[in-house]
């Protein structure tokens, strides 16, 4: 009954011969909403890419007790070439697999699916535009649509709140809350203050992984986890996380 979607056991991974992530273990359950935090270069992205199978596994193993789930992925937008001539419609459609191997165009039903999601996201007026003409928030939205169009059971988001304004951030979080009813979410962020009210649990990744089974975390705990994240990076609301923690 309580089988995890993904079972990560003592994995290490990295680039070429350099190990970035060491002896990390984590179970992801179907309705989890895990915030993955940690310093830059600490291995957050490496962890999610290893789960996605696009980064080699050096040691340990990753298993899927419920069968390999469909995964949706939103990469770091800074890694994307925004001048590439691809339209919003094509981008979102690229999240759908081809039904015919030797003629991999989208079926009519799949095209309708793309239009429907574009409509729900409010991107329809921009559908024929190249991604380079969109604002930061609109780009994130388009990439999120690409990630979820396949109805994944595991959604992985790498820094979805960079380059976006506050109003979009709110919309994004509302969206994620709704999606979380249907799928497990892994949300990578260096900005723990913003994500902590939304996530259910936290994984601190800095070479090693420490799982924190709550969305409340303090500087002391982060110190114990050897996970230096700046909690005061939020301008007018310093120690916001600490405050919220004290409330409860």
């Amino acid at each position, binding site marked *: 009954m309580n089988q995890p979607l993904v079972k990560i056991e003592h994995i290490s991974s990295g680039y*070429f011969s350099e190990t970035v992530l060491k002896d990390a273990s984590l179970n992801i359950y179907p309705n989890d909403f895990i915030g993955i935090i940690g310093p830059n270069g600490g291995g957050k992205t490496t962890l999610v*890419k290893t789960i*996605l*199978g*696009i980064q080699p596994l050096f040691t340990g193993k990753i298993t899927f007790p419920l069968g390999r789930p469909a*995964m949706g*992925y939103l*990469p770091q937008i800074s890694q*994307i*070439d925004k*001048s*590439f*001539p*691809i*339209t919003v419609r*094509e*981008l979102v*459609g*690229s*999240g759908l*697999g*081809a039904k015919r191997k*030797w*003629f*991999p*165009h*989208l079926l009519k039903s799949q095209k309708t699916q793309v239009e429907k999601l574009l409509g729900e996201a409010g991107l329809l007026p921009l559908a*024929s535009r*190249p991604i*380079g*003409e969109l604002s930061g928030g609109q780009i994130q939205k388009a990439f999120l649509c*690409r990630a979820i169009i396949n109805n994944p059971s595991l959604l992985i988001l790498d820094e979805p709140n960079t380059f976006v304004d506050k109003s979009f951030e709110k919309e994004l979080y509302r969206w994620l809350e709704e999606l979380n009813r249907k799928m497990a979410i892994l949300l990578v962020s260096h900005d723990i203050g913003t994500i902590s009210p939304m996530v259910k649990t936290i994984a601190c990744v800095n070479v090693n992984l420490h799982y924190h089974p709550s969305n409340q975390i303090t500087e002391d705990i982060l110190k114990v986890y050897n996970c230096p994240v700046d909690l005061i990076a939020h301008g007018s609301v310093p120690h916001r996380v600490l405050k919220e923690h004290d409330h409860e």
Partner: protein
Amino acid sequence: MSEFFSIFEYAFFRNAIASALLTSVLAAMVGTYIVSRKIVFISGGITHASFGGIGMAYFLGLNPFLGAAIFAVFSATGIEWISKKGNVREDSAIAILWSLGMAVGIIFVFMTPGYTPDLMTFLFGNILSVTMAELILLAAFCLLTALFFWIFYRPLLHTAFDPEFSQIMGIPVAFFRYAMAVIIALSIVISIRAVGIILVLSLFTIPQITAMLFTRDFRKIIPLAAFWAALGSVMGIFLSYFLNIPAGATIICYLTLQFLLVKLFVISKDALKRQGPGKVHKG
């Protein structure tokens, strides 16, 4: 005017025009991929590396284009392999390949006994001497490439744009990347016939950037680039014929001039557009 039409009576001229149009279509498709993926420099490396094959083929008494094709395909797949491994500085590897290919070519041409009459053709192209057999080969390759682009449009675009995501989607990324490396290499070698090694790359870039002044939609860039390339190469052939100057170089000069004029047109149109509503607003 009668002189203008009378040149069409010559088979060599009709062949040249047909070759220019087909090369334009081929370069439009492959060039759009090259420019979108920002691998113009890689393509330059492939082009120049192919000269090594030309020199070696001369020395061995084989068809120089065969030698060029083999060298181009090996260097293209080699660069793709290096960039996938990622732990070698790709730009340095390309620079080495670029000059090594030329060096090998020069040495073998030097060692080949006697005079090498067509050498200038490879360096600068000679579109006015294209034969019927070459034209058929070009047409066949153009058709195959168009079919490949049409059928596999989505995976081609997706693997070029975001290979990691394509891998997650289960697309055979390596297959499409290598297939495109081979197509790029062969397209370049086939187009060398028209404008030569030194100039060929501009046929794969200038019409594309001209088209991209109007659209940033991959699907629309291809036909628009084909139009600009065709217009440019046909105009280039006419100019070269009537002014009695080399065709390849004339085509490239014309393409560049065309790009600048179009760019100027787009800039001034945008400026007028910005000025227009502004005036109304103030008034």
